[in-house]
């Protein structure tokens, strides 16, 4: 990132060390990543992100707009992204549901955007102020049709900030929406955070060829082959962007099986080809473990507690935390499952990632489920050992 801009951001953020909550950390990460557009709609427990963005973004010359609903919030950031902006929105379950339509559009049109979902208990209005992790499948399959999302799940406030930076970089690199999945607990929990001195940012690749040679949805020319270069609106490339199935020139091609097949498979493969690269796992005490505690997000904090309780008792338990949820770390789960007798998946829903783990594990997999807005106690997780 340009140093003077980063300096301006750091000035707006204030002291290098701060005791902040997860929602603020999302904003800090966004600004550090170069976010210059926020469009959203208030919702508990994500409203603080919109509030903080409204305060901070204008100070660094960015745009904040509160839209009329979540559908519009998502729409506005896609529009902004097509002018070249680094755009994001933030929401929680009910809003995430409303955004699914335009999330699908963002995947189909290969628009880099970031969405922070501060999850709460659902379905429907559920428990607005209490945390959950019930939207993990929605982050993968929420919109209709076939697509592949990138979804990150932090478990500390520092990590929430860092993952938001990472989300922007991945969105730019892969030209697709990236989800940062926190929860009400992470969103409202305060921890000490250190604002980084340097921030590595990735900017979407722009075409180098003249407009007449530019193929907006064709092969990438000098980056990833499956990620075409992005020509922002207003730069003379005259790109037609549609949610219809389109050919490599961007024009509707709705009745050809091969056009659709080629387009959708490329859009999925641009992410899944890099599955290993995107896999991000924290392991503790896994070397000699017979039982692996697989978890992510807030539940992983309880799993960490369970780990120390079990180790004190002399039980060979290990901790295996997924930081990237989607694309799913197939190989890592499979290899790990061959070394343990049992996997316990602890999550704050009635079993979502559990099913994916079970799909790729070669050992017994059990679920430790907790819902209702409270976290697992370590003993609840260990009851499954």
């Amino acid at each position: 990132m340009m140093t003077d801009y980063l300096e301006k951001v750091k000035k707006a953020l204030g002291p290098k060390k701060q005791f902040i909550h997860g929602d603020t950390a999302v904003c800090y990460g966004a600004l550090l990543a170069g976010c210059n557009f926020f469009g959203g709609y208030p919702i508990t427990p994500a409203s603080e992100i919109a509030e903080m963005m409204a305060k901070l973004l204008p100070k660094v010359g960015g745009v904040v707009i509160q839209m009329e609903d979540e559908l519009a919030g998502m729409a506005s950031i896609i529009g902004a992204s097509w002018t070249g902006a680094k755009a994001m929105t933030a929401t929680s379950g009910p809003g995430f549901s409303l955004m699914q339509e335009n999330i699908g559009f963002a995947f189909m049109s290969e628009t880099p955007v970031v969405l922070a979902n501060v999850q709460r208990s659902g379905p429907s209005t559920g428990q607005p102020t209490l945390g959950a992790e019930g939207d993990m499948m929605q982050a993968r399959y929420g919109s209709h049709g076939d697509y592949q999302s990138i979804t990150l799940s932090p478990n500390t406030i520092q990590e929430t900030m860092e993952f938001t930076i990472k989300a922007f970089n991945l969105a730019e690199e892969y030209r697709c929406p990236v989800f940062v999945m926190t929860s009400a607990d992470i969103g409202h929990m305060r921890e000490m955070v250190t604002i980084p001195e340097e921030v590595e940012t990735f900017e979407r690749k722009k075409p180098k060829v003249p407009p007449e040679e530019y193929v907006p949805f064709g092969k990438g020319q000098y980056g990833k082959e499956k990620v075409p270069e992005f020509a922002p609106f207003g730069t003379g490339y005259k790109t037609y962007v549609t949610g219809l199935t389109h050919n490599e020139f961007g024009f509707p091609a709705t009745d050809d099986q091969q056009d659709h097949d080629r387009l959708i498979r490329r859009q999925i493969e641009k992410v899944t080809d890099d599955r290993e690269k995107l896999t991000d796992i924290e392991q503790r005490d896994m070397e000699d473990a017979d039982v692996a505690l697989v978890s992510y997000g807030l539940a992983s904090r309880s799993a960490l507690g369970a780990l120390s309780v079990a180790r004190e008792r002399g039980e060979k338990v290990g901790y295996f935390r997924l930081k990237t949820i989607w694309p799913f770390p197939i190989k890592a789960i499979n290899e790990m499952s061959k070394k343990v007798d049992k996997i316990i998946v602890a999550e704050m829903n009635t079993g979502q990632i559990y099913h994916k783990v079970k799909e790729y594990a070669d050992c017994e997999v059990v679920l430790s489920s907790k819902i209702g807005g409270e976290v697992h106690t370590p003993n609840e997780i260990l009851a499954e050992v």
Partner: protein
Amino acid sequence: MKEKKSVNIVSGKKIQEKYLRDEMMPHIFCNGCGLGNVLDYALWAIEKEGLDMDKTVFLSGIGCSSRIPGYIHADALHTTHGRALAFATGVKMANPDLNVIVFTGDGDCMGIGGNHFIHAVRRNLDITVIAVNNYIYGMTGGQVAPTTPEGHFATTSPYGNIEPPFNMSDMAKAAGATYVARWPVFKPHQPINSIREGLQNKGFSFIEMLSPCTTAYGRRNKFRRIEDLWAHYEEKTILAEDHDQIEKFGTQEERKALKDKIKIGVFHRETKKSLEQRYQELLEELK
């Protein structure tokens, strides 16, 4: 004698060559559809205003009218149903230097997009919206629209529509649009001038085009042929000024006849700061 304006008059052929995407032809519009006219008028207005097509973005939602941007050689965002104005808000706010033109239809704008519409208008973004009103959901085969007149037939109102329709231009004006006009497509000059005025206006401009759809609307409502619908518009429309005069000074009979008339013309002009302008001022203040 009036001095001649130095406007470059070019031929329709040149307009076609300059603005249309050859590779998108043939277009999807039915015989007798008014969308070709609307596209034509928009391009003439753009030509006369000398808009830089490298800096002009067209947006649309879903429906027949929303296919228009695909035929124009420019940046375009063909978005989800009803949401074009929400996308346009992002485009314009993120880059106020771009000219933003939105094509929408009555179902797209007043049905599924109604909420986005009133809020985009309220914000007074500097964008120009060309809303094509054909009283029907055409793309999906002729379902009743929020604009279908009472008693008229559609596939989902087979016994006649029992709901009162929305008046799009009145809605735009009530929500705070700074330029509002309505014209039927059979008049070329007035809509071209209105689109030009809309492009010049530094705020939310709304141009409603009454456009015939013989395929999905006409044939179910005794307008089987194109000329039936054109004749219908000719007979039913009345200039807003004439309407007001008759309302004030007309005989009882003349006033009674107004009930069935559709007002056309420029309904509203106002100068108000656009949202982008206000935002730029805010940024200046914070510097």
